[in-house]
């Protein structure tokens, strides 16, 4: 019947086909919402890579997401802002916070606004949205790896860093828009194509990005490096005594996971037109972990589908407040059940089911 490999290939093909066929059946409004779910799917994939494959429970994925989001937000805000008498566009909240007698130039209007200057280029914003999370993640992973800090502490530290980031974001409101975040932006200009959130092409761009990320990471974990990474996750010491630098592998994959999260942040802002400090709430970061756990942390596609599914259902139910709470209660229960009894989530359940049906033994992955 179906071998594991064939089953997996089929799932990927089915999923990719599904997301590309969807626009034929959905109107722009729903499509735009679904595009956000795809972005969350990308977050699920990032978590799966860092947690399921590398064994690093990152409770601060929201931070990398947020950095990506704010980077592109800076650029898109400028794209949507007018000049205020000077030579550069000035975001509205900066005008409100302006120092008296400050020239209406981006580098001088408020303390710290010079950071915004290079973001006048959208591609700079895009690049920073991927690079800064990557560099930051590399730094964090390197420091934590060298000090051989245990898994629990990694979780606590990543969580604290995210909260720290949120505090700073809110505090420096003259540069970041503070509590309210950044709104009223322009559209991203993709080589002449304007990415209006309610435009079908925007959906396709996001679908393409998700597909590239999925296939790219799937390939990456199938290489020898991916295998060694799983060995490290299983038994760090054994890997060391074989000559592998545990720290190097962890840093590499953690950085990639962060870059994917950053890309997700960028795409999210493009499709939802706002960036907010709530991206750095504990709840958001942990919720991503919940999506990946429910979908199946050791399956990139599983985590992706888990995220999309949970968000889709949640959104459908959000019409009624108490239904929404009930749904979240259910998620809590499902999550608990998965931690206790189904570590491989729904993807694991599905694979076991298919194996049982085709009467095969063994646990080859």
């Amino acid at each position: 019947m179906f071998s594991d490999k064939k089953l997996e290939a089929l799932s990927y093909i089915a999923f990719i086909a599904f997301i590309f066929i969807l626009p034929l059946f959905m109107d722009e409004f729903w499509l735009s919402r679904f595009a956000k779910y795809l972005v969350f799917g990308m977050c699920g994939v990032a978590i799966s890579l860092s947690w399921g494959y590398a064994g690093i429970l990152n409770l601060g994925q929201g931070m990398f997401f947020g950095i990506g989001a704010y980077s592109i937000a800076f650029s898109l805000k400028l794209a949507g802002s007018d000049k205020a008498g000077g030579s550069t566009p000035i975001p509205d909240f900066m005008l409100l916070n302006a120092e008296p007698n400050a020239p209406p130039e981006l580098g001088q209007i408020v303390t710290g606004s010079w950071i915004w200057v290079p973001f006048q280029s959208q591609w700079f914003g895009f690049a920073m949205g991927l690079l800064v999370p990557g560099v930051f993640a590399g730094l964090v992973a390197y420091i934590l790896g060298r000090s051989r800090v245990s898994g629990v502490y990694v979780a606590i530290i990543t969580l604290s860093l995210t909260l720290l980031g949120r505090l700073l974001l809110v505090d420096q409101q003259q540069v970041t828009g503070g509590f309210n975040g950044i709104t009223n932006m322009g559209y991203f200009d993709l080589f002449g194509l304007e990415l209006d959130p309610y435009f079908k092409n925007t959906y396709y761009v996001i679908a393409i990005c998700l597909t590239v990320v999925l296939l790219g990471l799937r390939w990456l974990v199938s290489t020898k490096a991916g295998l060694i990474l799983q060995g490290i996750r299983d038994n760090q010491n054994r890997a060391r005594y074989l000559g592998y630098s545990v720290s190097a592998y962890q840093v590499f994959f953690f950085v990639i996971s962060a870059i994917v999260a950053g890309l997700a942040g960028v795409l999210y802002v493009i499709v939802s037109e706002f960036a907010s400090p709530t991206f750095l709430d504990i709840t958001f970061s942990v919720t991503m972990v919940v999506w990946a756990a429910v979908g199946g942390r050791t399956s990139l596609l599983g985590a992706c589908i888990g995220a999309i599914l949970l968000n889709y259902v949640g959104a459908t139910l959000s019409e009624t407040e108490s239904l929404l709470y009930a749904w979240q209660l259910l998620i809590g229960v499902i999550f608990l059940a998965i931690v206790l009894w189904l570590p491989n989530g729904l993807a694991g359940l599905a694979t076991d089911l298919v194996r049982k049906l085709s009467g095969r033994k063994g646990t080859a992955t």
Partner: protein
Amino acid sequence: MMLSGHDLKLVERVNMIQSSANFVVENLEVSFNGFKAVDGMNLKIYDGELRVLLGANGAGKTTLMDLISGRTKSTGGKVLLNGKNITNWEEHLIAREGIGRKFQIPNVFRELTVRQNFLIADCRQTGVFSNVLKGIGRTLPENVQYAVELTELGDVLDREAAILSHGQTQWLEIGMLLVQNPQLILLDEPTAGMTAQETQKTAEIITRLKGQHTILVVEHDMGFVRAICERITVMHQGRNLAEGTVKEIENSEAVKAAYLGSGGIGHA
């Protein structure tokens, strides 16, 4: 033909000229909270030799292995491999330099399959980028195939390592060492918990390793030791107490004194 003590020394000198000691431990020491677990240990192992390390519990044998492989940092002395000073290097760098270790409690990748365990043990290239460019095919590389055949684990290649029996797990670890192909192999009680049959097979596997690798084995099972051994080093209270062949050690006065009236180490 029994050699006299004088002749033994001559033979030793000749040996030293012919093959250099490629693994040297010099005055190695480590103390934990004032207790010297290893106290000025000296050891020279020659290329291709199989050396057995004997000693009572607490003599410092496993600690010595920890020090050599980098698991514990020493507080004095040196470890030299091929003349290179690798004292207190990080574990993975020591491993890359050519030291492989098998632990007392089998230490494999339990949740991965046997096949995956062997593949990871193929660590000729350890860098991230070089391994990103390597795929994993269905056919096993030659050296892995050889190890699989030698350890007779071909039937369970696609099962998780966790389901292996104790003996099979030990062989998996030894097999991985084969694949790793280090210059110096440290074996910490490779037959611990094995049946007589399993012990015999382990002796066969280890004998195959002789000559192409330098091996240091910690063991208690004297029957096993006699089957594989060339030279023995006896460790006592963190020091090198005596060295020699099985017969010499069994008859050594120093060893007998250390074991205080017991029948000597032959009854360990």
